[in-house]
């Protein structure tokens, strides 16, 4: 086997920006050695609607990252989001075959296959099977139930599936750079693993990734993901609301949102005004600060409410002891944690990257890409089926020649 490290790219094709991280995986540890970012074009709500524009942006970001890393990517782990993603829970149970009720691997494999086997509608493809903890005679087993004694083995899978054409669009964007997509990683899971601790996931935590065009959320229980979802609304909707309500262009509205937007109304003075640019030049005009806050707060509240509604009975304050963790670019909106706490009735905080992440990548907007890199390397074992594409002899041999 070649001792050359593997250079893995984590690509997030977002609505507002495209982020690429280059990770060097030596088999024992992962080091981020390159970073590329490009303003996104041709992507709406996480879906590619202009192939050429999206391709140019993505490839430019990859080139930037490769240039900074000084290495060529071997493969890509791609973040997947979009309103086309849906999930369902499917559960299966088997009677333990052994006479002594000792659970063996065959029992585990059978119950897992049964739980994952669910016919999808035409044009839908499975993106991820997220296994929930095993239960042996109703007792929750967070790890493997092998060699435990019980009569009945249950397991549930949260299966995330998406529209095949949308997924193929994302794959083709990467393939157009002659790179292979090794793994698709849900954006919600990617950011969730970055901003939460294992203890929080064990106690139950809800991670909400407020992006530009979409809002991804993942609910963790018993140390693993329980439910995921995507909402086709994000920071761009706040900007759009401001543009409509205050009759501004998208650029002006975005500027106001970043400067004066809040997720909860804080201004008490109804007459306080803020200037669009503050330069008193032609076109610069004042706006009521409370109006801005009311618009952004209303939309923020609504987004979080919709998330709560989509979670339904899966979410409860009792099963989400660690509260809500907010991440994503829109999570930088002041008061968003307070808003989330009010909506969900639990404590909420802003997510922070682990200490080992460099300072320039600690912004909430990069959590997903970091999580994709992390998930791509460490999240495969146990939870996902191993990738069937193993590098062949010739591939390993050609890698000896290093990067061009």
């Amino acid at each position: 086997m070649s001792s050359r490290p593997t250079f893995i790219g984590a690509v997030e094709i977002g609505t507002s920006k495209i982020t690429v991280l280059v990770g060097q995986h030596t088999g024992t540890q992962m080091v981020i050695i390159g970073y590329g970012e490009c303003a996104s074009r041709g992507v709406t709500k996480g879906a590619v609607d202009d192939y050429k524009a999206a391709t140019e942006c993505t490839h430019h970001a990859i080139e930037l990252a490769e240039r900074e890393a000084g290495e060529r990517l071997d493969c890509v782990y791609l973040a997947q989001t979009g309103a086309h993603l849906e999930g369902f829970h499917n559960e299966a149970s088997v009677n333990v075959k052994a006479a002594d009720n000792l659970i063996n691997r065959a029992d585990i494999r059978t119950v897992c296959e049964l739980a994952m086997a669910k016919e999808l509608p035409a044009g839908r493809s499975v993106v991820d099977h997220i296994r929930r903890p095993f239960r042996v005679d109703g007792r929750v087993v967070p790890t493997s139930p092998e060699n435990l004694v019980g009569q009945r083995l249950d397991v549930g899978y949260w299966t995330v599936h998406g529209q095949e054409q949308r997924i193929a669009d994302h794959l083709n964007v990467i393939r157009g750079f002659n790179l292979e997509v090794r793994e698709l990683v849900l954006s919600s899971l990617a950011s969730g693993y970055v901003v939460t601790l294992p203890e929080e996931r064990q106690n139950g935590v809800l991670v909400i990734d407020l992006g530009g065009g979409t809002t991804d959320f993942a609910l963790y229980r018993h140390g693993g993901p329980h439910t995921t979802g995507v909402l086709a609304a994000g920071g761009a909707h706040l900007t759009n609301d401001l543009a409509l309500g205050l009759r501004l262009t998208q650029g002006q509205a975005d500027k106001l949102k970043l400067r004066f937007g809040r997720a909860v109304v804080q201004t008490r003075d109804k007459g306080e005004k803020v200037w669009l640019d503050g330069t008193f030049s032609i076109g610069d005009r004042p706006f009521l600060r409370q109006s801005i806050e009311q618009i952004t707060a209303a939309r923020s509240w609504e987004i979080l409410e919709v998330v709560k509604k989509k979670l339904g009975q899966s979410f409860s304050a009792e099963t989400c002891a660690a509260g809500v963790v907010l991440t994503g670019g829109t999570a930088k909106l002041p008061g968003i944690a307070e808003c989330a706490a009010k909506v969900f009735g639990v404590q909420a905080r802003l997510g922070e990257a682990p200490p080992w992440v460099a300072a320039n990548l600690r912004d909430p907007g990069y959590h997903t890409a970091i999580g994709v890199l992390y998930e791509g390397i460490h999240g495969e074992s146990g939870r996902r089926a191993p990738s069937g594409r193993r590098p062949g002899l010739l591939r390993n041999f050609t890698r000896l020649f290093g990067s061009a």
Partner: protein
Amino acid sequence: MINAQPILPASRSWRDIPQPVRPRVMSQGGRRRLALTVLRGLAAIAVGGLVIWMGGEVVAALRPAGARAPSPVVGRPVRPPVLITDGVLTNAWLARTLALPRGATLMSLDLFRLRARLLEDPQVAAATVERHPPDGLTVRISERSPVARVMAQAGREEPRAWLVARDGVVFSGTGFDAAMIGTLPWLDGIKLARRGAGFAPIANMVPAADLIAMAKLEADGLYRSWQVVSLGRVASDGLIEVRTRDGMQVVFSTAGDYLRQLARLDLLLDTAAHDPTRSVHEVNLALGSQVPVRFGPPLAPQAGDATGASGGALAPSVPAAAAAPAYPPMLAFPHLSSLSAPPSP
């Protein structure tokens, strides 16, 4: 024991979506990346091949000497060369001409030089020399055949007969049968130019060679009587003059059909043979259907006819002036015209 496996519904995974490489939809960076990948693959194959080859070489070098493949024979002297010819040259001539050094090996021979040595003899028209490892050498030559001979003096040698081939090449002639050489006519009316140790090819030889060959093939009796063939008027008049051993001169036209001219000559001589008192002195076959014939002076009566001729009525006396004209009368043979007239339909 029956191990029943449940039939599970097939769910399509994103891994089932093909990720084909389509250079047409690739960006410039993607195409560049693809080209680099291909180049790296080719370089890998080349290096792999090189490593395999070098490994083979190393293994061959490390193998014991006895186990190595037999190397080409070195130092084995070449056997006497094999001569394949369409003529009369012999192995002795070949050995003398090639003059191979004693103990020479096959690979030490310069075949081009050997071939040049062979072609130095004008009797050889074409030659090939082939190697047959480990020690065989085969020489294939094509020889010139003589059609005439010419008396000439080369250098300080005594004048001697040289042979002339159809293409005008003059050569000394090695290995030919002397009787066959004796039947060849002599050439006249030519100018020999020296070239090296021999002579330059004779010009205008081809028409004469064709005439000689035709005569030899179709009218051997006539050919045997030919003594001299003159090419003096070939270039200027297109005429070939042949002088027979009995003094008759025959003029052939190079523009006419030789076979027809020879047939006329044969018929004419047969007709003239009925009159033993007169001999044909000159025949001109170059005028088509009209064949002028010049007769020589009347022959003297033979011993058996002397009595009758002296006083007999059968032998009329001929005036001296008439009997010995300065120019013998020319007679035309009208019946010979049928030979040249086109056949009536």
